[in-house]
């Protein structure tokens, strides 16, 4: 089997698995977060929603560690935001996996392409903090 066919086979087997796993994890966190908010902090949700509608809901962006710690301590907002962050990690995880595969196969053009995409995704997180 040549290198391209080998790459294709691994990508077609593992990419769907990776996409599905992260998607299910994010969905479960979001569903749990909404149910938890409904039970523990429904008034908080409604007040936040009204602030969002009025365009006055400001909250500083949190990093991943803060969100995990917040979720573990039962903060509903952290739980929901963590679910959304995990969801946005779907493409990041998929591109990182592809990069590892291309490095393994020493496919230089595609290493460069996927490394650029991965760097751009990470840069996106920094760009949001600047702009």
């Amino acid at each position, binding site marked *: 089997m040549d290198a*391209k066919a080998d790459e*294709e086979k691994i*990508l*077609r087997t593992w*990419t*769907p698995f990776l*996409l*599905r796993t*992260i*998607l299910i994890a*994010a*969905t479960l966190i*979001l569903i749990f*977060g*909404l149910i938890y*908010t*409904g039970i523990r902090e*429904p*008034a908080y*949700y*409604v007040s*936040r*929603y009204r602030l*969002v*509608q009025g*365009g006055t*809901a*400001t*909250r*500083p*962006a949190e990093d991943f560690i803060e969100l995990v710690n917040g979720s573990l301590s039962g903060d509903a907002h952290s739980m*929901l*935001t963590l*679910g*959304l*962050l995990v*969801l*946005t990690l*779907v*493409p*990041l995880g*998929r*591109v990182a996996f*592809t990069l590892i595969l291309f490095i393994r196969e020493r496919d230089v*053009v*595609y290493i460069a*392409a*996927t490394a*650029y*995409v991965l760097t*751009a*995704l990470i*840069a*996106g*997180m*920094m*760009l*949001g*903090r600047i*702009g």
Partner: protein
Amino acid sequence: MLTIVAALFTLAVGAGFVGALSGLGGGVFIVPALVLLAHIPMNVAVGASLISVVATSAGASVAFVRDGWTNLRVAMILECATVTGALTGAYLAGVFSAPVLEMLFALMMLQSAYFSLRGHGESLVSKSDPLCERLQLGGTTTDEHGRTVGYGVTHLPIGAVLMVVAGVMSGLLGIGAGAVKVTAMDYFMRLPLKVSSATSNFMIGVTAGAGALVFLSRGDVAATVAAPVALGVTAGALTGSRMLPHLPSEALRKLFVVLLILIAIEMGWRAYSGL
């Protein structure tokens, strides 16, 4: 709280369902639904939409990748262009005022309506041009008789330029911009239509993901809105894509063109009033 979550979820299911049936994706419908019906500010609607687009792309891509419809190499190369555009668009979304974004959204809907009526590309090419050959972008697909046929790929630079445009639209307006991506691949790069659609769907996740990361890190994603919307759009899109083969596609296409034009007029009027 239950009323708000149920209302957002229902809107999102509807948008995801119509997005899947029309082939335009849930983002095109959820942004106006949130702005016009739920009275959510444009930037918050775009942030919520981008996250739901990531979810629907991931959900739909699973089967396409597994069954071999996605051209993974074309996707990897063109994603360089789409993420560049998406980061630019998402950054600009934080600079432009809401009425400007709403006017651009209205124009994008009219462009989507035009693309929905446009014909498809010419027949396949059997051999790639030298650049695409060097990058090994060609692939195989199945024809109407179930036979495996090879196809070549051409005009990568034109495709890449259109992908930057698609990326800017995605990051700026919270959509997948699948119509532009499919046009670039089907019409200019001469990929088979089904391969173009599957590859576009796969790339949309990374494009919208780049934009969503900018919105999230800027603090522009309201979890109270985005959480039920992401779940609803995904549920609606999965239902819509399952029902699609059993519905009259030509009549639906005409109906969606009318719907797109009506929403574009409403968004355009709202933007004009706010300018």
